[in-house]
């Protein structure tokens, strides 16, 4: 743990950031760069840095730092920068509520119940994993069914193995990473089962986590039953048809003592809901404008709390922007209002930000619904960008320069990803 605990909690701050993971740390640095003086970064864990500490594998930072780092190295670099910038880091603390006047109610291990005023707030609470209840796997309720990220924390930080014979349901990146990790710890990984006809994780992880260790990936196959009274004893898996309906006549059993779930992340928006932010039903994160400001004045949001990213580098990029805008907000410098709404069209699940200004440059992040090779991203008639391929597992990001928007006079721009 890097020594970061503040001794004195001030009554008022320029910018308060809820969540000290990669999004919050980048937002803090962004806010500082725009002249915010008193900045408070709050995290509920005993140290800031977030999920990166348990992501011990490498592959982080290529975009942002230009070199390949492990998760902990990425976290430490950022945290050192935060501390060098004299940002107050308050750990072991929850943000319980935010009033419309941006007064935050905190619950802190060291400071008890506390209230601080903020001129601007950045929400950077990240995401949590979907659990068994989210996909209603039938069967008994034995111990040994847990999410891949929890298993990652057990193995990499606490030093526990979750089991000896493991089945992984879902081909999300955390599941793939854990397939390799557990194999290296001497655990037998029986296979990864994915209900969709395509893998959910990055291709590179299929290669270096599954192929390298001869771990089978079963596409269009899912777990239809979990057996065991006390502990998981076996699972039944079955192939699914085009409508994702399992064909039980072709089901088979696999002996195992553990089921890891890697079935997606949900932005953690309890606080956003409590303060009535407008949320996007597709991302389940706040609707944000091109400055990453939410529907509440002076409240910004960034990172996985807005939409699920597959690379931390893009979290950092988006969050520095949110932090800069929060810093600019407190000085009264408001950028021109957004005048264009983005409408997700063919094969586009969502776009972030939700609106653009025709006077500035933007990066638009989007996720597609199905894979296509040789395709184009079209912003109405004004911009077309060719891509070699798109996958639901890989976020698409497109730079939109103002010159493309200056001749556009509508108020809504449809975004499509189509075959060329």
């Amino acid at each position: 743990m890097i020594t970061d605990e503040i001794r004195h909690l001030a009554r008022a701050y320029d910018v308060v950031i809820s969540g000290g993971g990669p999004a919050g740390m980048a937002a803090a640095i962004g806010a500082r760069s725009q002249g915010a003086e008193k900045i408070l970064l709050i995290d509920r864990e005993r140290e800031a840095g977030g999920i990166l500490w348990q992501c011990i594998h490498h592959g982080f930072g290529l975009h942002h730092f230009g070199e390949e780092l492990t998760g902990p190295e990425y976290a430490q670099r950022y945290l050192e920068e935060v501390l060098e910038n004299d940002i107050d880091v308050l750990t072991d603390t929850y943000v319980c509520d935010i009033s419309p006047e941006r007064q935050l109610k905190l619950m802190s291990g060291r400071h008890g119940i506390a209230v601080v005023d903020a001129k601007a707030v950045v929400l950077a609470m990240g995401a949590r994993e979907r659990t068994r209840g989210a996909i209603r796997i039938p069967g008994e309720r034995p111990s040994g069914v847990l999410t891949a990220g929890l298993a990652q924390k057990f193995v990499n930080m606490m030093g526990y193995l979750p089991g000896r014979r493991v089945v992984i349901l879902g081909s999300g990146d955390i599941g793939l990473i854990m397939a390799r990790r557990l194999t290296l710890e001497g655990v037998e990984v029986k296979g990864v089962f994915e209900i969709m006809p395509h893998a959910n994780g990055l291709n590179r992880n299929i290669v270096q986590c599954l192929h390298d260790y001869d771990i089978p990936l079963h596409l269009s196959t899912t777990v239809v039953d979990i057996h065991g009274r006390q502990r998981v004893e076996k699972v039944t898996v079955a192939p699914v048809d085009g409508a994702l309906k399992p064909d039980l006549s072709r089901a088979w059993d696999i002996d195992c003592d553990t089921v890891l779930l890697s079935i997606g992340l949900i932005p953690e928006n309890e606080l956003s809901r409590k303060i009535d932010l407008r949320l996007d039903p597709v991302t389940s994160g706040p609707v944000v404008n091109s400055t990453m400001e939410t529907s509440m004045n002076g409240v910004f949001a960034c990172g996985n709390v807005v939409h699920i990213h597959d690379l931390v580098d893009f979290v950092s990029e988006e969050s520095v922007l949110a932090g800069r805008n929060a810093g600019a907000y407190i000085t009264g410098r408001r950028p021109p209002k957004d005048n264009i709404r983005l409408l997700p069209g063919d094969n586009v699940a969502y776009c972030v930000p939700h609106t653009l200004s025709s006077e500035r440059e933007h990066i638009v992040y989007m996720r597609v619904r199905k894979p296509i090779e040789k395709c184009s991203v079209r912003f109405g008639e004004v911009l077309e960008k060719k891509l070699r391929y798109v996958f639901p597992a890989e976020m698409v990001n497109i730079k939109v320069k103002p010159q493309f928007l200056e001749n556009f006079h509508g108020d809504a721009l449809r975004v499509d990803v189509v075959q060329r």
Partner: protein
Amino acid sequence: MSEHHVSHYLCIGCPLGCRLEVEDDGTDIVEVRGWDCKRGERYGREEHTDPRRVVATTVKVRGALWARIPVKTSGSVPKAMVREIAKAVRNVEVEAPVRLGAAVLTDVLGTGVDIVATRDVERV
């Protein structure tokens, strides 16, 4: 004339995951195709002739907030040795504090590569 053969690899150099084709004439690589950056070309050559990986794992640490500290190989190691190296590292135990970059094991299994900590841990 010997027969040309094309092998397919997926670059793991970055998350783009370029689909590479490596063409050889039986002895030497003739061409590497499908890469977006030089890193991809290099990866294609290396994966075809001498596949290597960086290994990340953990070791026990006493006197710290958590029971484990993350470590990695200071350079890449032959892919065929990855499991063996992970196993050798399992027996290592260190005492907090530890600094990022500190070697917890040197010259693992004679590879010339060290096992180094990937974060600071303080004594608590």
